[in-house]
């Protein structure tokens, strides 16, 4: 599934990084400690976080993540939006909690594995 399909399916606002909407999503990760995300997120992942500092874009680039979704109504700092535009990393916004949104993404088949 592509980022733009997820964005449309779950009615997510696009805050920045429009030009990366064609990226392919292969799974997902949730985390707000960037040290943990750097260690455990993976290429093509959708990343759900409440962390809005500009370093999230660098982590997404480093780990080749598909996109970032800021959950729980959090919005990115201006610097974060600027860097996301520069790097073409989509930042999407959701009012849902990480738990609720991750559950819905999983049910939609993203990163779903056999129990």
């Amino acid at each position, binding site marked *: 599934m592509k980022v733009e399909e997820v964005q449309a399916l779950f009615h997510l606002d696009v805050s920045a990084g429009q030009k990366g909407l064609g990226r392919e999503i292969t799974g997902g990760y949730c985390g707000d400690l*960037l040290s943990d995300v750097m260690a455990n997120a993976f290429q093509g992942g959708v990343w759900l976080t409440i*962390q809005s500092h500009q370093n999230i874009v*660098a982590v997404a680039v480093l780990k080749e993540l598909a996109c970032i979704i800021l959950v729980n109504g959090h919005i990115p700092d201006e610097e974060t939006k600027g860097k996301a535009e520069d790097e073409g990393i989509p930042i999407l916004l959701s009012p849902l909690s990480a738990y609720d949104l991750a559950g819905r993404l999983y049910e939609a088949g993203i990163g779903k594995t056999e129990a």
Partner: protein
Amino acid sequence: MSPKAVVERSAGKGLDIIAICDHNTAENVEACIRVGMQHGIRVLPGLEINSREEAHTLAIFETPKQALAMQDIVYQHLDGVNRPELFGDQVIANEFDEVEGFNDRLLIGATGIGLQEIVGEVHRLGGLSIASHVDRPSFSILSQLGFIPPDLGLDALEVSHPETWESMGNDTPGIGGLPIVTSSDAHFLTDIGRVYTLFVLYAPDIEEIRKALHGESGRKVGR
């Protein structure tokens, strides 16, 4: 930890300069400064601010007025009420170790201020901005943000366990070039003096420490 106990323990450990940096508050700094004067210890007023990113950062000043101005900014962005049964009594004491009151704010909480803004405000007020316990896995800038944003403008990084830092090594991205200070992050009297930093200074003040951090004019951070 009362003002007299903190200062007396510091004196007993041979410390010349200490900084009082309670979480998100500076209400005990003036009492500690007064006790410090009786013992010949320079007490620098400060706070340990919990940023919006939940990274702890030290703000250390020359005067209580500066620290209290920073406290005003912190209080404007700090929600919640303390529950002493969960987080303990937040005592405000005087220089005679008498309890003058209790701070009822939720001092353990995170402020709504981002790190960038905190560093900017601390510098505007004339203080030093030092990232707390960067060698620890919780509430440090490295745990929260993965690496230190190169344009943040911190004055130094604080390490609380030098041996851990040695093993982490200086290959941690984004830390290059920032001076390291070692301090005990004392939460209990027995922590005081556990580790410390040697400075070569002409006087025990913020401007001299700033010069030492940058290795200017013969001032330096010893090892």
